[in-house]
């Protein structure tokens, strides 16, 4: 099995101690790749935690520190926003489960450190969706996607309300009722996720997914999502989560069992495979063995290796092969989420609208 030589940013995550020895041109490539993959603040923090940041030459160090400043500001903004969302939804009594970055931050996980944040994602029971939407609209959120097509796409076919933007704060909130669309081929049961969710220390109402579910959600998001641009960042999240939860009792056996319960053995297989190979995530062999149940046919796996490893390579120089790979992944991610007929229709409409926007 051949794997592509890791890029500087991957090496920075795996072997930060080697960083201060880099030449300026090597730093130039690393900063560009890290910026492209939203990992610049994470690299900064990794070096800082090891006391190595001051050994970085001044010119690249400025970028690391600037990115860290930006990430800190984003984290503060997320905290504030979570407080607003919590206050707005408090009276509904609906259990609100934070997902992804906001969850990592509020739960104090290491995955939040040096992370870039954008939208906030929450998970609520499907039955509470109407109530949640109405309450949010009352508190100043409004829907961004206003065409009838988009509304249908999100509500009927996807697993979320159309994205909501707050009218004065301009922050974006994605309200999910499942972690994959109703129409997807994989069928993880949201009720199970909600039932296993945990409270957050110091917060009366906010909740986060159980550790195994957080990992599975991250894996699903990485390998089944449209937005493949942030793939390496998502893999880095996964790496952080796995390292942190490894010390929780029976985390590993529960992870593989849970993947089976939620019909997510395929994403888990890929997640562990690429985390181990690219980021050296310490995963016990028996766990990798148990995850084999999610392994695809060898031919498919070879193709996926080529696709994902090229995608996970952040190569900033625009590279025909890389963009082809990214394009194929986009189609694959959609395929996993929507039946082919709907998919073709959706992609055609999306392509048409891009043209309209260009012409307008």
């Amino acid at each position: 099995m051949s794997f592509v030589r890791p890029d500087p940013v991957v090496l920075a995550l795996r072997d930060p101690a080697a960083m201060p020895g880099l030449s300026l041109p090597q730093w130039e490539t690393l900063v560009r790749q890290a910026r492209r993959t939203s990992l610049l603040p994470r690299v900064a923090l990794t070096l800082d935690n090891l006391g190595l940041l001051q050994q970085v030459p001044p010119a690249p160090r400025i970028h690391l520190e600037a990115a860290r400043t930006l990430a800190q500001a984003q984290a503060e903004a997320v905290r504030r926003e979570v407080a607003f969302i919590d206050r707005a939804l408090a009276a509904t009594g609906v259990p609100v489960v934070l997902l992804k970055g906001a969850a990592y931050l509020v739960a104090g996980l290491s995955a939040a450190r040096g992370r870039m944040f954008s939208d906030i994602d929450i998970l609520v029971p499907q039955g509470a969706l109407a109530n949640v939407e109405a309450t949010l609209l009352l508190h100043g959120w409004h829907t961004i996607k206003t065409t009838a097509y988009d509304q249908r796409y999100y509500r009927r076919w996807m697993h979320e309300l159309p994205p909501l933007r707050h009218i004065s704060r301009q922050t974006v909130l994605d309200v999910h009722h499942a972690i994959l669309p109703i129409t997807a081929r994989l069928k993880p049961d949201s009720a199970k996720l909600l039932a296993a969710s945990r409270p957050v220390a110091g917060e009366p109402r906010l909740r986060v997914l159980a550790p195994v579910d957080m990992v599975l959600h991250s894996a699903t998001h990485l390998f089944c999502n449209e937005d493949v641009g942030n793939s390496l960042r998502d893999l880095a999240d996964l790496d952080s989560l796995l390292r942190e939860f490894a010390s929780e009792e029976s985390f590993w056996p529960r992870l593989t069992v849970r993947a089976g319960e939620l019909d997510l053995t395929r994403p888990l297989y890929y997640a562990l495979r690429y985390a181990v190979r690219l980021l050296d995530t310490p995963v016990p062999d028996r766990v990798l063995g148990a995850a084999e149940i999610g392994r695809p046919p060898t031919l498919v796996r070879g193709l996926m290796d080529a696709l994902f490893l090229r995608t996970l390579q952040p190569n900033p120089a625009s590279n025909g092969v890389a963009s082809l790979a990214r394009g194929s992944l986009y189609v694959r991610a959609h395929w996993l989420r929507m039946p082919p007929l709907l998919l073709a229709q959706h992609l055609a409409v999306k392509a048409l609208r891009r043209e309209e926007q260009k012409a307008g």
Partner: protein
Amino acid sequence: MIVADLSPQELLRRLGGAGLRLRTGPVLNRIQSRLPKIAHGVALHYADHAVEDSAGFADFHVRVAPPRSLRRWMNPQVHFQFDGARPFLPLPADQAFPILEWGLNWCVSSHCHQYLIVHAASVEKSGLALLLPGPPGSGKSTLCAGLVSRGWRLLSDELTLLDLGTGRVVPLPRPVSLKNASIDAIRRFSPGAVLSPPVHDTVKGSVAHMKPPTESVHRATETARPRWIVLPRYECGAAPRLAPLSRARAFMHLADHAFNYDVHGRRGFELLAQVVAGSDCFDFQYGALEDTIAVFDDAARRV
């Protein structure tokens, strides 16, 4: 070595190949483009700017190129690329140099969070900085171009960089962008100014750039202490009028016109407070450039 030291062939070779590594104040840009308009624009406006070799660290890699589609033959366009990504929609090909300038601005305002960056022109005299924050159309670039033609040093036309530690303005001497009537106004006011040919029908109207004075480029490492904050308002035919502006309102203007005030949180608040506390603040209405110089020279003398 500066751009003027390169032969036209060498300039083209670098731009068309591994990139021209051009220093603009604290920022080193690697610029790639095969477009003649870019080579001409760079040769004209950046003649005095230093060129560096590839052993150093470039902050931003940018490229101006036509898109890869059939459109390049029918209706030529250009893209600005930053590390392979395209933050803007494409523009008509004759706007190649303006899109480079706007793109370089975008690189700084989006990433240089080591500074608090205000959307303002700034000029210097006797080590003191005059800040001209204002929305497009307020006349800040025209006023800036006028002042630097009459003895003030250009610190920046669009992006005023404030050092978070010292509160001083860090120069970013780059071409001054002029629009519509300002182009002729500056030509009349300063016949010796080096202006690019205007590009028409941009989203901002007709656009031209004025080469930064050589001295401002040479003195790019000399910072300046903010001393005056002036909100310009151009009104055709109006008599010049400098009216005091409260410090609190000047503070709010700076915060409103800062690209990354929110990124700096409490620190940004403290910095702007420091800048405002040490400055005299004014609203300035003017109708003719000729009137303005005396007003500001006078203020500089009285310090």
